[in-house]
């Protein structure tokens, strides 16, 4: 990517995101991508005056991650989507659709983590 990418850790992401907000960055969105069978990349895209900047949070998919919905409330949609598609779990996500944003009970596998049954799906 041609824009700057800042690596963040799950522990630090909340603070870092808040700093971005305080510095006047707009949250454009979140992207998720599997790195391998275990690890997930979550990219936070920020914009300020047409320039982009990204955070990259790399973490095991199964471990709970902190939600940034308390900082940028609009992030709830993106985080819920990531929960649906990757079965990651965000803590303190408001509102938490618990993997029902898109998916019905008929979908028994995790879409982007192929070959993994969605055993941990809550109802």
């Amino acid at each position, binding site marked *: 990517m041609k824009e700057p990418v800042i690596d963040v850790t799950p522990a630090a992401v909340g603070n870092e995101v808040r700093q971005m907000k305080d510095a006047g960055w707009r949250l454009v969105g979140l992207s998720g991508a*599997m790195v391998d069978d275990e690890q997930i990349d979550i990219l936070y895209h920020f914009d300020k005056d047409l320039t982009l900047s990204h955070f990259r949070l790399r973490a095991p998919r199964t471990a709970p991650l902190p939600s940034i919905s308390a900082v940028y409330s609009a992030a709830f949609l993106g985080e819920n989507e990531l929960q649906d598609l990757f079965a990651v779990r965000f803590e303190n996500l408001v509102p938490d659709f618990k993997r029902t944003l898109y998916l019905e009970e008929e979908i028994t596998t995790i879409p982007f983590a192929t070959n993994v049954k969605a055993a941990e799906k809550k109802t």
Partner: protein
Amino acid sequence: MFRMTLNVLRNLFTPKATRLYPARVREPFAGYRGQLEIHIEDCIFCGLCARKCPALCIAVDIKTGKWECDPFACVYCGICADHCPTDALFFADRHRAPAEKHSLMSYTGQPPKKKEKSVAATAGSEAPANRKSAPAD
């Protein structure tokens, strides 16, 4: 409100905009991708169309000389016709008529004799090959 009154009154006293389809059919624009058709006699069963089709709706079997397309899945993008080396595939400028039942477009032609093996192999294996997924790192 006043301007809108002028508008609607103008509408009242000018010819109606309605195109009286199906009583009167408007001349289609040249290049309109109405429906996919094939001159099966020109087809060399190379299978390029099947491989390029984003909807995966074309099946070509070089062994039997069979070209099949599911018109219900075709998205009328024209990629197949673009890639057709012999221009056997083309788009007619009338839209495809509604149907009451599902049927395949199925044509049988003469597959070319030479190079038959390699092409057939590609055509036969490509579609399922696309289905394997799982991203690598």
